[in-house]
């Protein structure tokens, strides 16, 4: 099968076509950076971007989400409605989708979490290649730029064009509707990209290194700079811890129980009645976050819960870098 | 009536703590004052050493009720001192914000603080039962004016988008369209209803009058709120930078707030003073309403300040619609926020007509952008002496009209409330030295 390509100018047309049938989520600019947003005007979509502020998890595990509703008078609990509109995620980097796959593991193994899984139905992912910037280090955690796992369609950028690869039946179906925008592709192969931000060693064996590093001085050193604001957790595609709280709408019988993104960097995260906190020292918490990614939680293929997006480094105002810390351990 | 003593501790339905004290002994009025007992707040001293970017944040806390006015005046003073360029768009949006704040403050005062007196109720709460439609309307009007402040200023109380140089975030076109629609289709009809209501209550305002000097801002092209020269019904125009020659603040023993005077023993600022200076520039509907209510300069009945507030509410509604039309035609242009100032030593004065009258801020900066000296002159301070002077004439007038003590007390309270005094604001200063 000869491969096909789409010219960059035709992207909005392709998006328009998708919009007729799907909710389309894609990156759009926000000031100096980017965010994933439901697309109104297809011209907004950008395919050349480094990273969005928040990962795609915000669509599946929203920052604040009702998990149970209830009625105080009637004394009954109800499931909230969960929307799962057919959605195309357009222009997605592969580490981003790897993040979703990690969340699938977290919410889909052991006790299955329908509140999350419902929203994962009817999703189509259209990936795009990217040029790593100073923060990305995905390759170091086993995600080279040509990894296409999970995508329905993958766009590879070359000379003002994108090669279009349909990887699943759903993908083929969409590509077939794009035929009028497509031309023959003169490019095969995948771009060679260089990551600037790297680990000294690849992830193989990293779990053992972490397990052996419990008392390493790097934790204390790092914690001196950290003010436990929690940003690193919230912006991470694979952090999914949450807090739960109830609220009754003033003057009504309507109650709701919600979950809200939480952060293991905050002292109260482990605090129980009596005031005991199980990771009381700041360095306990710094260590926990990073260890969780590389030693405590691995998916079924033994891949770490860090996808190398670099968000936690980029957005840390105290300049704490997970790669620096790891390189100190390696 | 020869001997009388009236004390209204903690006058209610005003901002801040004040006490009315009237003593009549053997037919002689020996005391008739509004004692201001609010703890002093020392703002000018507290601001010393803070950066120019912090001036508006701090001075805003002089008063939550007037925080829009304080912030706008503060950034204007800083901009003058540090020679900022400010775009027309910024000025237009700030005007819209001032109008929104004026509406919200006037509506609050008319319906929630003053109206209970007109309906002989202790507060608005029983009115919610007896006049539910009126109260719902008032809430609706107040909500809309707050929405305007939220959309332009970020929030109503201590707005968080105003910085020297401009706004840190701009409203969207959709939001502006929304405001315009609401003003035209909700505020205007509600304001007309309010006018009918006030007209029907006109006889509830005591028929007392005492002419004084009325001071308000004035410009060539509009009813001045955002800026202008300082205009006096006695002496004409004075440039804003010479504001001290107008305000002449002094200290009295019965008040933690300074008083002010110009040519006479006192002067008045606020809605009535503005109306007396700017009547000719009222927008058509406001003008119509003013005329129907007989509010033609010089209006010398201080109780009618409340009526002047309604006229102004209508005026700023019309004015806001006008400038929204212009803004929507030119479109909102993105501006770069956080433009740092080129630092140098400098002094600047800002003045704005806030709901209760002219507000002045003056700052002196050092060459690193730090406040060396700050001075704020607040409307309620400017009105304080005028209130005392009114009371001095009002008491004999009430006696002549055979008011009993209860009615006298209520009328005195109504007088104080008519000025809509903001006592919290008035106690902002540091250098009180008690003199007798």
């Amino acid at each position, binding site marked *: 099968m000869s491969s096909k390509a789409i010219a960059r100018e035709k992207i909005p047309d392709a998006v328009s076509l998708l919009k007729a049938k799907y909710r389309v989520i894609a990156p759009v600019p926000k000031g100096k950076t980017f965010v994933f947003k439901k697309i109104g005007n297809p011209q907004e979509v950008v395919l050349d971007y480094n990273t969005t502020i928040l990962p795609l998890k915000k669509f599946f595990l929203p920052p604040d989400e009702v998990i149970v509703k209830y009625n105080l008078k009637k004394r009954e609990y109800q499931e909230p409605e969960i929307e799962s509109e057919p959605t195309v995620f357009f222009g997605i980097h592969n580490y981003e989708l790897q993040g979703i796959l990690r969340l699938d593991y977290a919410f889909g193994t052991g006790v299955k979490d329908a509140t999350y899984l419902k929203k994962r139905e009817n999703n189509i992912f259209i990936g795009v290649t990217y040029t790593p910037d100073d923060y990305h280090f995905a390759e170091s955690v086993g995600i080279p730029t040509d990894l296409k796992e999970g995508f329905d369609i993958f766009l590879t950028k070359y000379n003002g064009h994108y090669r279009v690869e349909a990887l699943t039946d759903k993908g083929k179906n969409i590509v077939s509707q794009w035929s009028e925008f497509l031309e023959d592709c003169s490019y095969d192969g995948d771009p060679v990209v260089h990551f600037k931000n790297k680990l000294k060693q690849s992830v193989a064996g990293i779990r053992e290194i972490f397990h052996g590093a419990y008392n390493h001085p790097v934790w204390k050193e790092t914690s001196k700079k950290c003010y436990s604001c929690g940003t690193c957790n919230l912006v991470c595609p694979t952090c999914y811890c949450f807090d739960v709280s109830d609220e009754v709408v003033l003057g009504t019988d309507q109650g709701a129980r919600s979950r809200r993104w939480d952060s293991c960097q905050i002292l109260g995260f482990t605090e129980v009645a009596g005031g005991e906190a199980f990771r009381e020292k700041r360095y306990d918490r710094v260590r926990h976050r990073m260890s969780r990614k590389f030693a405590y939680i691995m998916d079924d293929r033994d891949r770490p819960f860090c996808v190398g997006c670099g968000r936690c480094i980029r957005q840390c105002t105290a300049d704490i870098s997970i790669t620096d810390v790891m390189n100190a351990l390696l | 009536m020869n001997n009388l003593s009236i004390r209204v501790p903690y006058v*209610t339905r005003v901002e801040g703590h004040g006490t009315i004290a009237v003593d009549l002994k053997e037919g002689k009025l020996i005391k008739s004052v509004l004692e201001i007992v609010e703890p002093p707040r020392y703002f000018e001293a507290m601001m010393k050493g803070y950066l120019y970017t912090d001036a508006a944040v701090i001075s805003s806390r002089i008063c939550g009720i007037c925080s829009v006015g304080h912030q706008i005046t503060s950034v204007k003073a800083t901009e003058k001192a540090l020679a900022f360029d400010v775009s027309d768009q910024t000025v237009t949006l700030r005007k819209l914000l001032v109008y929104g704040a004026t509406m919200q403050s006037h509506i609050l005062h008319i319906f929630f603080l003053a109206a209970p007196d007109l309906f002989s109720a202790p507060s608005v709460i029983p009115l919610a039962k007896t006049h539910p439609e009126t109260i719902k309307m008032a809430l609706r009007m107040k909500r809309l004016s707050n929405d305007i402040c939220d959309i332009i200023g970020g929030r109503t109380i201590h707005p968080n988008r105003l910085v020297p140089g401009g706004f840190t975030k701009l409203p969207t076109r959709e939001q502006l369209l929304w405001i315009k629609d609401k003003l035209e289709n909700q505020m205007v009809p509600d304001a007309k209803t309010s006018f009918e209501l006030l007209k029907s209550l006109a006889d509830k305002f005591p028929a007392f009058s005492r002419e004084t000097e009325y001071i308000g801002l004035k410009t060539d092209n509009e009813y001045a709120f955002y800026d202008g020269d300082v205009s006096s019904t006695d002496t004409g125009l004075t440039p804003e930078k010479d504001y001290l020659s107008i305000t002449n603040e002094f200290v009295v023993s019965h008040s933690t707030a300074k008083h002010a005077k110009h040519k006479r023993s006192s002067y008045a600022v606020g809605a009535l003073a503005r109306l007396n200076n700017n009547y000719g520039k009222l927008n058509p509907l406001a003008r119509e309403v003013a005329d129907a209510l007989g509010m033609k300069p010089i209006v010398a009945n201080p109780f009618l300040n409340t009526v002047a507030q309604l006229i102004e509410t209508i005026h700023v509604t019309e004015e806001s619609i006008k400038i929204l039309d212009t803004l929507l035609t030119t479109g909102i242009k993105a501006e770069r926020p956080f433009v740092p100032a080129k630092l140098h030593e400098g002094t600047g004065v800002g003045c704005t007509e806030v709901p209760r009258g002219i507000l002045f801020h003056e700052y002196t900066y050092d060459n690193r952008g730090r406040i060396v000296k700050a001075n704020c002159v607040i409307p309620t301070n400017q009105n304080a002496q005028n209130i005392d002077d009114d009371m001095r004439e009002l008491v004999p007038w009430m006696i002549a009209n055979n008011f009993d003590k209860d009615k006298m007390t209520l009328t005195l309270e109504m007088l104080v409330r008519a000025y809509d005094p903001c006592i919290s604001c008035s106690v902002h200063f540091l250098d009180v030295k008690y003199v007798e």
Partner: protein
Amino acid sequence: MGKPKVAFFDFTSCEGCQLSKLNLENDLLDILELVDIVNFREAISNHGEDYEIAFIEGSISTPHCVERIHKIRRQAQIVVALGSCAHIGGINAIRNNMDQDEVREAVYGNDKYLFPSIKAQAVSDVVKVDYVIPGCPMDNQEFKRVLSALLTGKIPEIPEYSVCAECKAKENECLYDYGVVCMGPITRAGCRAACPTNGHYCYGCRGLVPDLNKNAAKDVMEKYKLSIDQIKKRFYMFNTNYVNMEEKSYE
């Protein structure tokens, strides 16, 4: 159970928090159905002295304030401090760093020696406070939440995490990316990142996070070119009573 009797009292403050409640236009009538407001000087003329819940606005800054607040505490079953002034002393406390003698003279003139010097204090520095609604001004949505909690018999909780957490959840661009120093990382959340969302730096009005790393914060601010003097001033703007910038913090 009858409607709970509620009173509002104001001390040294800008009265913004009082207004903030009046700005709940869409809920005011509902609230009046749920509680009996017996004292609210700014809005109503009658004063009741019989109340169960007292909401306190403003800091305690004169001997007279101290007397009044003790009296309120004796009456009320539940005392809630509203807004920065009541919660932490707030902006009033800037003056606590000034020469107290000068301040006293300012208040009492020649009588200054009659009164002990009194700083602008949080309500909880003087009497027991059951719950707080932080913020300058207090956030009226939070007020609603707290009121709803009190009426359902729930302990109203305020977040322990930082404003950054809420700022991130809103997907704002970080102000530090524009070189603007923001107190968000060390300020207690709950305002839904009101200021950063509007492009303004957070000035810490909700109080500092309980687990403060002062040195880390100071280092970051310094890196963004705020002088030590200005860093202190930033901390003191709302939090004079809760941070000593002269002393080194622990890890």
